């Protein structure tokens, strides 16, 4: 039996930063912890694709995969292009095997990788504002110090612009990631019509990204190789494993991988954490004085339900419904490839015209980082025309990802008698803003059609939250106090997005990390 003062379950963004706050305090991190294999990709994606015969097999294995991993979406349930490429498959490896789920009307993804879903994130880090925290029992000033610590640690690029009123303080930011031609065109046209656009509630600016544009903390600046979809762990794009590995190396924390935590039992003597080896199935028990659950919203909910042997309660699950809006800039048709850009979100827009409603955040992408075959047959033309469209239309395409806030949970998690999870959605489509946004983008010269907008099935945002919401006065054993303490327990804390509810349109990764540090500090105080 292994003992520790504090056990943290999970090493994603929340687990890593809870551990960071409590480093040198007797922390043991338990994690399945899949890691990526070494990538041989070195250089720019497009230069590599033109490479000589000798490197062709290697390139095929990296881009398509020896088991044709990149063809996943041809035959199976949709997976984000970033998760399906061969080198990124470790992010979701073993998820169905280790924790089977019966899903009804929900697409979902879980990760048992060290670093969790942050291995495949777009690296957007946005502070929650007072407006975002409406309905929460905590205030912005309780999170701000942690946002600042993380900003200094991680290195965030961005700029003080029209979006600062939505994204919060801009101090300590590195210069923004440089834009490609289509991004510059959007920004230029927006600047010319700024007053008019703002009058209609439309704001545009740079994203806040955990992507270095200057060397920082031993990590080199981003090299604009457009390999985000194929190569894990670019040192310029922050990954929680960087912080985790630093702490392990400096012996500030202990870490045990291949550990799948199943449940805990709290007694007067402390907490027994029951787990099994994810490779061999061998069972193991750990003991601790304080337990911090940070295994991800869905996995944490499962651990709590299993610990309570509860097969009846349906826990809520929040998820920001996603819509993709393809837009075309006619002047950029036939444009030259912009191969040296960051292939995730290059700009953000916010729509804030509806009185009383939450602002709606959008991420704007060019289609540089993926293979064109990923969307080739989404063009409505014949096969050869689609190939021509991929060549001449791609430089003119702007993909807007629109995230709807989730204020009332419409997905529920239940533990079935066989200990599998059931995820069920009863989500009815909310009010559609797409026609209004198409009208606004038309004013800056980008054209689209409502019929081409695609709303993804619930769960596809991969931004889950709210299964064990925090409350000033918890009313059930499935709520947490503002300090993260799970109601009805003495020393079991929840530090991941399970505590966050409601969920604004904004990406909640930064708040997850800051809140995990805040809760970890509360836990630390109880041991003093």
């Amino acid at each position, binding site marked *: 039996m292994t003992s520790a003062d504090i056990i943290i379950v999970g090493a994603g963004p929340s687990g890593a930063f809870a551990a960071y706050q409590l480093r040198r305090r007797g922390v043991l991190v338990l994690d399945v912890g899949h890691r990526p294999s070494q990538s041989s990709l070195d250089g720019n994606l*497009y230069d590599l*694709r033109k490479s000589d015969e000798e490197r062709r097999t290697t390139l095929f294995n990296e881009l398509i995969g020896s088991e044709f991993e990149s063809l996943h979406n041809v035959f199976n349930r949709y997976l984000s292009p970033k998760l399906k490429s061969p080198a990124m498959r470790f992010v979701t490896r073993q998820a169905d095997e280790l924790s089977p789920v019966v899903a009804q009307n929900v697409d979902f993804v879980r990760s048992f990788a060290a670093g969790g879903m942050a291995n495949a994130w777009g690296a957007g880090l946005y502070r929650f504002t007072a407006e975002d925290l409406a309905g929460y029992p905590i205030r912005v000033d309780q999170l701000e110090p942690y946002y600042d610590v993380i900003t200094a640690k991680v290195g965030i690029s961005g700029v003080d612009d029209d979006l600062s009123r939505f994204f919060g303080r801009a101090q300590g930011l590195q210069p923004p990631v440089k834009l490609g031609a289509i991004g510059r065109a959007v920004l230029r046209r927006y600047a010319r019509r700024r007053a008019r656009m703002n009058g209609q509630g439309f704001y545009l600016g740079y994203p806040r990204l955990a992507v270095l544009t200057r060397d920082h903390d031993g990590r080199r600046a981003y090299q604009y190789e457009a390999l985000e979809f194929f190569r894990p762990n670019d040192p310029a794009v922050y990954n929680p494993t960087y912080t985790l590995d630093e702490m392990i190396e400096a012996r500030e924390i202990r870490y045990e991988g291949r550990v799948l935590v199943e449940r805990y039992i709290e007694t007067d003597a402390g907490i027994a954490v029951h787990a099994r080896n994810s490779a061999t199935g061998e069972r193991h028990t750990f003991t601790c004085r304080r337990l911090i659950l940070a295994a991800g919203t869905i996995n944490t909910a499962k651990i709590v339900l299993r610990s309570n042997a509860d097969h009846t309660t349906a826990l809520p699950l929040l998820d920001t419904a996603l819509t993709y809006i393809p837009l075309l800039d006619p002047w950029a048709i036939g*444009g030259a490839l912009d191969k040296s850009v960051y292939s995730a979100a290059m700009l953000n827009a916010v729509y804030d015209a509806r009185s009383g409603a939450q602002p709606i955040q959008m991420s704007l992408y060019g289609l540089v980082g993926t293979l064109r*075959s990923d969307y080739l047959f989404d063009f409505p033309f*014949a096969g*050869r025309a689609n190939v021509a469209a991929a060549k*001449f239309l791609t430089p003119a395409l702007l993909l807007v990802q629109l995230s709807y806030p989730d204020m009332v949970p419409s997905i529920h998690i239940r533990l079935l008698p066989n200990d599998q999870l059931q995820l069920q959605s009863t989500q009815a489509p909310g009010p559609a803003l797409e026609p209004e946004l198409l009208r606004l983008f038309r004013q800056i010269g980008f054209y689209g059609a409502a019929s081409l907008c695609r709303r993804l099935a619930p769960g596809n945002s991969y931004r889950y939250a709210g299964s064990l919401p925090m409350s000033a006065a918890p009313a059930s054993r499935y709520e947490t106090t503002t300090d993260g303490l799970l109601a009805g327990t003495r020393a079991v804390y929840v530090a991941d997005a399970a505590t966050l509810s409601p969920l604004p349109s904004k990406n909640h990764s930064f708040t997850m990390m800051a809140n995990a540090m805040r809760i970890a500090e509360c836990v630390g105080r109880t041991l003093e």
Partner: protein
Amino acid sequence: MIGPGNGPAPDPRYSSEWLYQEANHLYRALFGCHAPDEVRRQYVEAIHGATVSDLPRLDLRQLIERGVDLEALELALRHVRFVNPLTQRFRVISYLAEVRPENYGRFVTEHRHFFTGWLTLGMHLVRSIYKLAKGQRLLRIHDLC
């Protein structure tokens, strides 16, 4: 959904020899030239390992042997049902072709071609309308609607 390798008796539509030929027909329909040997081999492997959407009446082998215009048929079929075995096979060919250095110029342009772009797309639009009409006729003739 059925897997090509499943079932009690081997289906001739999924024999390696046939898939090897099928790859060439699809490649030619998409790019207007013969498929490299390596792409054909990769195609066989990819289809064998996959779960292909089944459309009971679609016998691709028979259609190819009759010389049906696969590009037209695929377009019409895609407009009726996005997930169908013909589009899936075209998508596989497209992935396998795209990562080959010799096809780089088919998918990517590194220089600005504004007028060529518009002209090419305009031409392809007209051609696609013709192909759609032809494909819809083929669907009716072969009872695939």
